[in-house]
């Protein structure tokens, strides 16, 4: 590999990280909250990228885990008081992992288009469980009046009510999830997942019990989606069935594809591009009446990216490096 590119990625990532870390010191409340939402979606997108980009499993029901974690928080949180982060977060993640494990046993028996349909079906089942039974408070959902608190004894360690602290908390978790997945993907387990994506049949013939690997990947991915869902529920202060509907699953899949599958930073970039663009295009001050039809412009943008950049927005950098190589006569 070109030595220049080997160090440029960590440098770019660190620069972005420090800019994001400093933003709450200067940014307005609205933008702090917007970026918090974006970073939560970035965690969600990375969890899906583990499945889509690294294991070769295209799921259209990933919001099921995202929503489930939110509902777990909403159900266990005391009505007018803060929930305990140390107990409710593991509980939410555990519930998502368990749900992923159980559904994974069934959905992973299918592949390709059938996998897409079955994951969608499970997510829709969960949607109607929360929509039509007393568990989920119907289509209005449930309010969470106070954000969870991280306490040790009686001292509050992290006051997540503070929008800046919540922002930094989410930023840290995004970085941790990124580094965690990088590490995992570089291990034997991760190499096997990538092998499954490239050529599952051959990997099985080499002696890998691929079903178990896929199940582990599905479970881990579900738990991480749950982390995003928990944070989102904590941020917005309510859950409703929409968050686990197929629109939500579709949006996160779009972020992964937009950013470039199989590169974790691509998923983060995809989340930023998708949500910020959505925010900009629907801004009436900028686009007037056209803002109401932001989905049209968004659709066009996605089509253009899909046509020009088959590897997503992450493909932009390789476009430049390919040109640089041509100019310097390497290729």
């Amino acid at each position, binding site marked *: 590999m070109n030595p220049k590119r080997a160090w440029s990625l960590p440098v770019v990532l660190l620069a972005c990280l420090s800019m994001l870390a400093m933003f709450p010191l200067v940014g307005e409340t609205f933008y702090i909250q917007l970026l918090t939402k974006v970073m939560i979606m970035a965690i969600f997108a990375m969890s899906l990228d583990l499945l889509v980009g690294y294991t070769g499993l295209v799921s259209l029901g990933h919001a099921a885990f995202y929503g489930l974690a939110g509902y777990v928080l909403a159900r266990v949180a005391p009505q007018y008081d803060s929930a305990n982060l140390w107990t409710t977060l593991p509980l939410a993640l555990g519930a998502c992992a368990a749900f992923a494990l159980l559904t994974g046993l069934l959905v992973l028996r299918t592949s390709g288009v059938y996998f897409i349909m079955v994951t969608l079906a499970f997510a829709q089942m969960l949607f109607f469980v929360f929509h039509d039974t007393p568990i989920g408070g119907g289509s209005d959902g449930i309010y969470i009046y106070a954000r969870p608190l991280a306490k040790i004894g009686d001292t509050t360690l992290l006051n997540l009510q503070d929008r800046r602290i919540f922002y930094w908390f989410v930023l840290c978790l995004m970085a941790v999830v990124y580094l965690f997945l990088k590490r995992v993907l570089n291990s*034997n387990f991760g190499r096997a997942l990538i092998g499954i994506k490239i050529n599952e049949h051959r990997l099985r013939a080499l002696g890998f019990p691929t079903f178990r690997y896929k199940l582990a990947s599905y479970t881990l991915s579900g738990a991480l989606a749950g982390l995003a869902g928990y944070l989102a529920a904590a941020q917005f202060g309510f859950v409703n069935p929409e968050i686990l509907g197929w629109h939500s699953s579709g949006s996160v899949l779009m972020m992964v594809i937009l950013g470039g599958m199989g590169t974790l930073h691509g998923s983060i970039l995809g989340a930023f591009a998708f949500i910020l663009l959505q925010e900009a295009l629907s801004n009436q001050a900028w686009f007037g009446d056209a803002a109401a039809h932001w989905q049209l412009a968004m659709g066009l943008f996605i089509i253009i990216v899909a046509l020009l950049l088959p590897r997503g927005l992450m493909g932009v950098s390789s476009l430049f490096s390919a040109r640089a190589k041509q100019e310097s006569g390497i290729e």
Partner: protein
Amino acid sequence: MSDAILRAENLTKCFGGLTAVNTVSLELHVGQVHAVIGPNGAGKSTLTNLLSGDLSPTLGTIYYVDETHGRHNLAGMKSDRIARLGIGRSYQKTNIFLPFSVFENCRIAAQSRQQRAWRIFRGAAGYADVNAVAQRSLQAAGLGDRGDMPAEALSHGEQRQLEIAMCLATQPRVLLLDEPLAGMGAEESQRIIELIRQLTPAHAIMLIEHDMDAVFAVAHRLTVMVNGEVIESGTPTEIRASLKVQQAYLGDAHGGFHG
């Protein structure tokens, strides 16, 4: 003669109305190369797929016996379990991980022997034993200096060599080689034939091959298949002398097996 490490009895595979493999029995012994020959469509690849678990037989049994694992009936067993028991195969149609480097193809093959997947925080490249097996397999197949190349950049013949290297990297006792020489140049073919000779003492090898010079150079026993059935089985001398084989397989090619 030692007991067979792998004994297939009355293997039959039907695809709808077509019987691709019909009551085939054969034995593989450590220290021997058992060649399976026959015209295209004779069912040789299907037989390999039955033994490796890529397909499960409609009828019949496949017994595998070794010191560490004991006795198992492989019929209906999944291919990954069969591979972990020690049965490795190469594919007739090159079947590798194209985006991986040549070394990584072999490394992941070697990794299959030690399923240490729970160590999710340890880098896959850091297992010296796995790396050593991978490098040794590459060298044996003549790709020792190609490790860093992407597998998709290899020539067709080199990809065939990689196919064999990956099979070796899983450290099998039984090797099922499905036309390993197809698409290789003369020099590489010679190298692989030499490699098969070196592997023979410690392995049981089933070789499917159209290159009769190669087959007769290494085989201890031959099984001749036509239309899914075994028409003759025996030593190279017996096969060469067999009228049945000459009639059914050679047809009008009086030149025999060139050898």
